[in-house]
Each structure stands twice: as C-alpha cells, then as structure tokens.
C-alpha cells in the first residue's frame, strides 16, 4: 500500500500550467478548475450550491437583462483586462436602463495551450470588478477549443438587474429640444488598446476608462428620475451611439464640436492615425438625454460624481425626418456625424 493519501489531488499549477482539452471535458480536470479557480474567486452562496443553474432571490420591480461577449485583443491593456472589461461591459448595459445590476453569469471559451497564470489573473480581475460593482457571479460555463480555433480567451457575460417603477429610460425617448450630455472624455479606451497593437508602434500614457457606471447611473436617476435615454458609447464611439438613438427615437441631433470633451493625448493619437475620436470606443462613459429644463440639474449631478467630473452638454435633439446627427464644427461650419462605415479598428471590446 502506497503511503500516498488516497484522496490527494495535485493542485493545478497556476504558475507554469496550460489549458488543455481536459479542462473543458466535463470531467475531473474541469471540476478541479472550477473549484480551485472560479469558485474561489467568485465565491457567493448561490455559486457555492454548485448546481447547473443558480437560484437567486427575485427582487421587486422589473427585471433588466443584457448579454455581451468579449473578444478583446490584447487581453491585458493599460487600465484593465478582458476580465474587468467583461464585468463592466455587461454591468453598464444593465445599468443603462436606469437599473441596479445584481447578478452576472459568465461563459468562458478557452483556447488549448492558454497559460493558466493568465487565466487566473483574468478571473481574479473579474472577481475584483464584480465586488466593486456590487454584483455576484452566480453561474458559469467553461469550454475549451483546440489550439488555433480561439484567441486565448473569449468571455460572455449576462447580467440581471432591477429597475424601479417610474423610471422609463429607453433609446426611443429622445424628444426635440432634449439636451444631450456626455459623462466625460471620449475615445480613451480605444486609443489605449490601439497603443498596444504591435504594428502601430506608438507609446502613450493613456489608460482605458473601463469602469462600472451603475453608481453614476444611480446618481443620475436620483437627480432626474425622468431622464429619457442612457447609453454607453462603446464600439463605434459617440457617433454610433447617437445615430442609434436618433434612429430609435426617429429624431435628428445637433452637436457642438467644441463642447465634446476629448483628452489632448487622445486627439493627438487619433490625429496621426487618421481616426476620429467620435468613433473610438469608450468603456467607462455614458451619454444621457433629458428634457432641456432638467439639463443643468443633470449636469450638476454628473459632475458631482467622480466618474462624471468632465461631464458636458454637447448638443440637442431636433426634428429631422432623415434622423441625421449633425455637428457645428469648431471652425464654424457644419457637417454630418454619420454611422461608422466598415470597421475603424478590429476588435477593441
């Protein structure tokens, strides 16, 4: 009889180990990964039940559900990583209904050969982001694909939240005369990501703005419960988000270019890459649209919040049968701010 303990399982080597096909097979290796990594990092009573589904308390009010898949490259960037991004992205999508985010699910698609050390770093970053956003990751799934069939890690998260009665935030509620506000500088996330692309070869101190915005949303809803629209200008940037809202609301918009906050470093990077900061992604900013008479109150509430220090009123909603977003340029002319055609950048969120 060997002196070895019968129930001993060698711990996963999170220093040098790699993801292999067994980690997604449903067998012991997968169970061990779930236990030693995910359960430990995300720990909460619902996840601890270890069922294939989570049974969670249903609070009063209307439920808000959103899902988002994250395929960012590179996986680690100044200001965040795919883990924090996958929490912030979905928490923000839920929050933009004026809601309080409560629970998240997460689905991992891992590529064979991916370093477990990196996976651990990502999972711990997700856990920290979830704690900070006051949401629980209550259920999850892991799949492994063969080497060459993924790109390290893909993460899907689905969020559930609850919105109070009387709060009616929706992209189709912009009305002529409404004020358009942004919560801060545009384009930080996209430029931070681009700075790491090997073939671009420029260095910058710009950090991604990735952040959960639910407390800012709570402050907004508190100050102006009748706020009409909230949306986070992620892929496609401010320009795309405003065009989406213009189409949903069947209105046009007029922006004032000098009023739109853009960091000088971001403007400079966009300048030599030939990009327009209005089309560059953000991960920690929002657009708010409210009645003109509420605008100053909303602006004050946003500026009083740390995530809204640079908030500004950037334009107004107008009647326009074509649903065009137009802008008064800094030079005094006017132009359209159109939908993004094609792709400005590959995969940034």
């Amino acid at each position, binding site marked *: 009889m060997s002196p070895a303990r019968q129930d001993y399982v060698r711990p996963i080597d999170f220093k040098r180990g790699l993801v292999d096909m067994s980690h997604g097979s449903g067998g012991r290796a997968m169970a061990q990964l779930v236990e030693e990594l995910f359960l430990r990092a995300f720990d909460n009573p619902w996840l601890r039940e270890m069922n294939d589904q989570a049974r969670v308390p249903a609070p009063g009010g209307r439920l808000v559900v959103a899902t988002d898949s994250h395929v960012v490259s590179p996986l680690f960037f100044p200001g965040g990583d795919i883990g924090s991004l996958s929490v912030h992205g979905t928490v923000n999508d839920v929050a933009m209904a004026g809601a309080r985010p409560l629970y998240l699910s997460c689905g991992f698609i891992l590529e064979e050969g991916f370093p477990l050390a990196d996976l651990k770093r990502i999972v711990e970053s997700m856990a920290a982001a979830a704690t900070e956003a006051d949401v629980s990751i209550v259920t999850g799934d892991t799949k492994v694909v063969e080497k060459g069939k993924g790109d390290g890690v893909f993460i899907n998260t689905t969020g559930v939240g609850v919105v109070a009665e009387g709060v009616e935030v929706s992209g189709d509620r912009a009305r002529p005369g409404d004020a358009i506000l942004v919560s801060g500088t545009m384009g930080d996330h996209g430029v931070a990501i681009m700075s790491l692309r090997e073939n671009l070869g420029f260095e910058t101190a710009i950090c991604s703005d990735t952040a959960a915005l639910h407390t800012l949303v709570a402050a907004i809803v508190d100050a102006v419960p009748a706020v009409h629209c909230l949306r986070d200008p992620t892929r496609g940037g401010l320009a795309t988000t405003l065009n989406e809202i213009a189409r949903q609301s069947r209105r046009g918009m007029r922006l004032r270019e000098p009023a739109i906050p853009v960091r000088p470093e971001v*403007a400079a990077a966009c300048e030599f890459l030939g990009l327009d900061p209005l089309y560059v992604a953000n991960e920690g900013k929002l657009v708010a649209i409210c009645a003109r008479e509420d605008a100053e109150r909303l602006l004050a509430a946003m500026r009083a919040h740390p995530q809204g220090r640079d908030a500004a009123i950037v334009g107004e909603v107008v009647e326009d049968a074509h649903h065009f977003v137009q802008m008064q*340029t800094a*030079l005094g*002319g006017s*132009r*359209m701010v159109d939908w993004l*055609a094609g792709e400005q950048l590959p995969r940034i969120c």
Partner: protein
Amino acid sequence: MKYVDEFRDGALAKSIAARIVRAAAAGRRYHFMEFCGGHTHAMSRYGLTDLLPRNVVMVHGPGCPVCVLPVGRIDMAIELARRAGVVLCTYADCVRVPASEGLSLMKAKAQGADIRMVYSAADALRIAQEEPRREVVFFAIGFETTTPPTALVVKRAAELGMANFSVFCNHVLTPSAIAHILESPEVRELGSVAIDGFVGPAHVSTVIGSQPYEYFAEEYRKPVVIAGFEPLDVLQAVEMLVCQVNEGRAEVENEFSRAVSREGNARAKALVAEVFELRRVFEWRGLGKVPYSALKLKERWAQFDAERRFGMSERSVPDHKACECGAILRGVKRPADCRVFGTACTPATPMGSCMVSSEGACAAHYTYGRYRSAA
C-alpha cells in the same frame, strides 16, 4: 494640441472667410479645383463650404490615390493574391475597392487569399523577412508622397539580397494628371468644367516642390496655390486664389511654406529617380490612358518588379455602367449627380472607388455633407 489647433482656430477662420467674402467680386463666379483628396476631406470634415460665399465654388479633383486606380489594376492585384504561396500586402484603404465580378481584395481575403493590411512599405518588407518561404508582394499605390518609401524598400530588399520580396507598382504622378485635366475637352473646348485655379497638393509638394506647377500657371494661365491639409490652410489658399484671379495673375504661390520649398525634397527625388522610371502610358480611373503619368521599376531592379516576376498582363476593365466616378474625378460631375449615389452606392456597399476612401469625393460628401442635398 500644439501645432494643430493653431490651424483649426474658429475665430481666425471667420476672419479669413470675411476677407474672402469681401474679395470675391459680386457678379462673377470663381471655380477652384482642390486637386487632393486630403483637401476634399478637410473641407467636408470642417464644413468649410459653409464659410465660403456662394460664388466661390470648389470642384473636387482626382487626387485620391485609391480612387484613380482602375478596376483592371485591382483585378490584377486579386489575381496575384490568389496565387499559391503569395502574400499580398496592401494599405487598408484599398481592400474595399470594387473589382470585377463583385470582388474586392477584402472578399478575396475572405475566400482564402493571403492579403494583409500594412501601415507602411517597411511592414511588407518585414513580413518577407519573417516568412522567407512565402512570396511577399507589396501593392504599391499613391502619388509622389508614397513613392519614396517604396523606392527605399526596394533598395533595402536588394541590399539584404531578398529573393521573396517584390513590388506591384502603381505609383502615379500629379503633374501629369493636372495637365490631362487642363487638356481635356471639357475644360478646353466645351467649357463645361470651369476651373479658375488650383489648390495645389500639400504632401505631394513636400516631395516634388512647387516648381513643377509653374508650367501650368504659365502655359494655361491658371493660378496654383499650394496649401496644407488643415482647414485654415485651405481657407487661406482660397483667399489667395481669389486675389490672383482679381488681379489677373496666374502664378504659383505657396501657402504651405512651413513644409514645401520650390525644389522639394532632393534626397527623396534622387531616391525615386534611382529606382523608378516613367511608364509610357498608364490607365487612370476616370482619366483613361494618360501618357507618362506613372512609374515602373527600372531594369536594374527587375527582380523586385512583381509584374515581371509573375508575368502579369495588363488589362483594361470598364467601370460599372451606372458609376459616375470617372466624371466625378474629372470634375465634370458632382457626387450627388450620380444616380446610384446614396442608394446602391454607399460607403458600406461601394460601387465605385470614390465611395471607398475617406478622401474620395463621394465618401466625403456622403459621410459629412449629404444632409445638404437631402432636404
């Protein structure tokens, strides 16, 4: 942003615009062609036409390197990219240009051709070094601005003794295109295109200098003002052109003196002369076959010439029947005059090259200005 914001100053723009309004005599119209797509883009992006009086009309020129590439040359590039073992490296603007049979480089890529987007000719050379078993071809396009970097990589490839790198050369020449427009029947005989002067190229002129335009000013009596790509540059150039017309002058003036000299960049010109020679004739989209308007590699560098290396044959393919890119590139028509503009042809589904590049007249008008014609 230092050295940029100064050239985008709204108050200064208003004062120049006011001077243009005062200078532009009522009762006559001024038509100026901005040759470069860079100027077209700056005018659209900053809404400059709103600042100009109605009797100062800007005509878009053919100076968009992607736009002037004919379908045949794109077809040739696709054919090359589909050969086994070939990696075709291209500037990203080219990948969506429509080719024959509903193809484009992007679609050929999706079908399996190894086409990679690069930011510079040097990136293509680096790929060739990293992948010595592949035949790496750089799809070289552009006016005089992008020609010296291509010359440089050809020389570098020779120094390194590289056997797997070549260039599919499509470099074209600005002065030939301007001469061709001035010689065209629409300008000379029919008078259907009025051109009172040119806003001269910015970046191209940093290489070739202001001297090559002196011939046009003198021979055709057309003023040329070389201008930078910032909005104030363009406004200033328009003011200078209006003054020249008013005073009956036809001279080359240099608004972009912070970057352009009369002689240009001697080293870049020498480099280009060492590697390239004139083609007898080259087909342009819109302008047709223009004599001595493009470059090819000299015999000495033949092994780096993809056309010789792969035995590629020239072909001439007409544009789509409904597409007016040709007339738009010659200044004969405006984007909104085209029947398919904004309907079948949009930046998402371009039918013609002018809708592809952000410097193209149609893409600029669609993206920034179509609300003007939508009323």
